[in-house]
């Protein structure tokens, strides 16, 4: 995240994504802004329903246009995507911006071979011939570490193992050397060793091609491994952002603190119980008033005048670092220290 005036490679400005449903309007994303430079990785963290996946489907324009109202700006390399025509987006998707999904088995077509699905993207955007596309598919499979790619290229997804399917999906996303890669929990369904391999692969490919990566996850361990900057989402809004070190070492928002203390730590004492965040994620149909986290926040009562339940705290950002809370930074630091002390 830069604070210079120059336009970032990907720039999201005050994005609002609202769905109309039979029960009312769901505010899936409610005023989100971030920037991302080439060669950098932004980690977006949040619980299910925090709006992180919706944000990224919206960047690609894959939301249901009949039910969705979009407000704000999404600029990719200076081009406005929210108002772009479908045919323009089709040229960008899979070419300049690509996406990796969580469940590779469900996300790959069971009816076509791996090679065909990779080659298809390549042919669509480069106009290559069938044999060229096949050669490219084999090359991509080799690059993502599939053994015997010239044989496996003709396999169907169900003949691949879980880790290999995710690699094939990455190969498919990267076949046109996209400048923006959105990875939506790409390692969640995989076991830890395969997860580590996939992360290494993404980092290598990023170094090689300078790809900008948006990495969506609810796993802070994954964030610590791959991200440069972190954005924490709650109830469709950004509650905290900063560099990975800043957010993980000195969190500013009670929600981030909650997330961190609900995670086991390898270097801490083993007998400290994990403390989950009480309550459940907010309804986006009837979101809590004021600060959306206030019903679950340990510190809400420390703010005078019940401000947390009436007024939305603004996200104050300075040099890419900021958080949205009514407490002053000093107050929070003090409370967090107290909390940590009682836990040990």
């Amino acid at each position, binding site marked *: 995240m830069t604070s210079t005036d120059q336009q970032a490679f990907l720039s999201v400005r005050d994005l609002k994504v609202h769905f109309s449903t039979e029960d009312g309007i769901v505010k899936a994303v409610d005023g989100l802004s971030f920037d991302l430079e080439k060669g950098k990785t932004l980690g977006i963290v949040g619980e299910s329903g925090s709006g992180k996946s919706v944000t990224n489907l919206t960047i690609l324009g*894959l939301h249901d246009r009949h039910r969705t109202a979009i407000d704000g700006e999404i600029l990719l390399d200076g081009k406005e995507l929210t108002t772009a025509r479908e045919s323009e987006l089709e040229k960008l998707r899979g070419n300049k911006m690509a996406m990796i999904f969580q469940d590779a088995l469900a*996300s790959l077509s069971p*009816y076509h071979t791996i090679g065909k699905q990779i080659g298809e993207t390549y042919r669509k955007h480069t106009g290559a011939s069938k044999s060229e596309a096949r050669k490219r598919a084999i090359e991509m499979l080799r690059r993502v570490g599939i053994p015997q790619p010239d044989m496996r290229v003709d396999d169907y997804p169900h003949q691949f193992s879980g880790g290999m399917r995710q690699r094939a999906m990455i190969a498919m996303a990267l076949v046109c050397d996209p400048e923006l890669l959105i990875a939506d929990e790409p390692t969640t369904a995989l076991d830890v060793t395969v997860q580590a391999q996939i992360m290494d692969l993404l980092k290598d490919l990023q170094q090689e091609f300078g790809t900008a990566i948006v990495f969506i996850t609810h796993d802070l361990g994954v964030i610590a491994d791959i991200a440069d900057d972190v954005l924490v989402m709650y109830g469709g809004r950004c509650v905290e952002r900063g560099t990975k070190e800043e957010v993980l070492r000195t969190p500013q928002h009670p929600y981030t603190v909650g997330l961190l203390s609900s995670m086991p730590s390898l270097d801490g004492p083993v007998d400290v119980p994990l403390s989950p965040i009480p309550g459940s994620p907010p309804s986006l149909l009837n979101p809590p008033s004021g600060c959306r986290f206030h019903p679950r926040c340990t510190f809400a009562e420390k703010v005078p005048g019940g401000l947390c339940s009436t007024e939305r705290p603004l996200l104050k950002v300075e040099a890419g670092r900021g958080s949205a809370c009514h407490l002053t930074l000093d107050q929070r630091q003090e409370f967090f220290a107290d909390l940590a002390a009682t836990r040990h």
Partner: protein
Amino acid sequence: MFRFLVRRVIGALVILLIISAVTFSLYYALPRDPARMACGKVCTPELLAQVRHNLGIADPLPVQYWHWLQGVFVGRDYGGLGNCNAPCLGFSFTNREPVLGTIMDRLPLTISLALGASVFFLIIGVGTGMIAAVKQGRAADKIASSFSLLGSSLQIYFVGYIAMYFLVQQLGLLEQPSYTPFTENPAKWAAGLLLPWLVLSIIFTANYTRMTRSQLVEQLSEDYVRTARAKGMSRRSVFFRFAWRGAMGPIVTIFGIDMGTLIGGAIITESVFSLQGLGRLALTAVDANDLPMLLGVTMVAAGAIVFANIIVDAVYALIDPRIRLA
């Protein structure tokens, strides 16, 4: 694929064997004397015994069945009544002819009826279903859904007579249903069967509309369809190359069952339109207590259904590579 087909054909033959045994024992166990019917009006006890011997029904039931089974493979001689070449499905007491000959005479009409109608209901049904799926939740979808609900609640003996009355007798738009072999005159063949085709498709279309719509709606919400869109594929190619591919399997399955049923049991349709097909043949055989004929028709109908299922399974495997045929 070859091994699969061989195995399935052997399995199908076993099923047909069991069906024949069950049908045989059911019908031949009935307290009726086929010999008396075959013997005719002037029948002496001597002649009756002779006929009974010729028909082979003096023997116990298992022996009779064994002879019938032998007849299927090596043919059979019915003494003074006549000869029946292999494959012999039996000898009709009333027609005094081998059963299979009569069946083969009637089969082309029934197959024409089934194939012709299926062209209509597949094109209209699947087409409407596709439109409904694309225009999901909007006016076109609601109209299609209402019509398919209406269509599926109609019955052929209702629509058939109404259509005949208005379209043939009152307005004279269509010809009275009749059958001319396709090889003789294709135009007359089509003109004579057009009304039954249309009426059958009104009934069957509804099913295919609903099926196509629900399958496509389900497929369109699959993750791999979203992935295809994320790759930059257009809506149109995603629809046909991905969603439709996935929706096809269940439609092919239902189609196979419907074809089997249409060929094996067009009794009501053929009665309504006075067409002399396999269904009418079964009906007259029941009326005349012509048990060998009934057994023969049952076997052909069962064969149609069993083999339609094999074809369906093979086609399904071509559509969906996850189904391994071995």
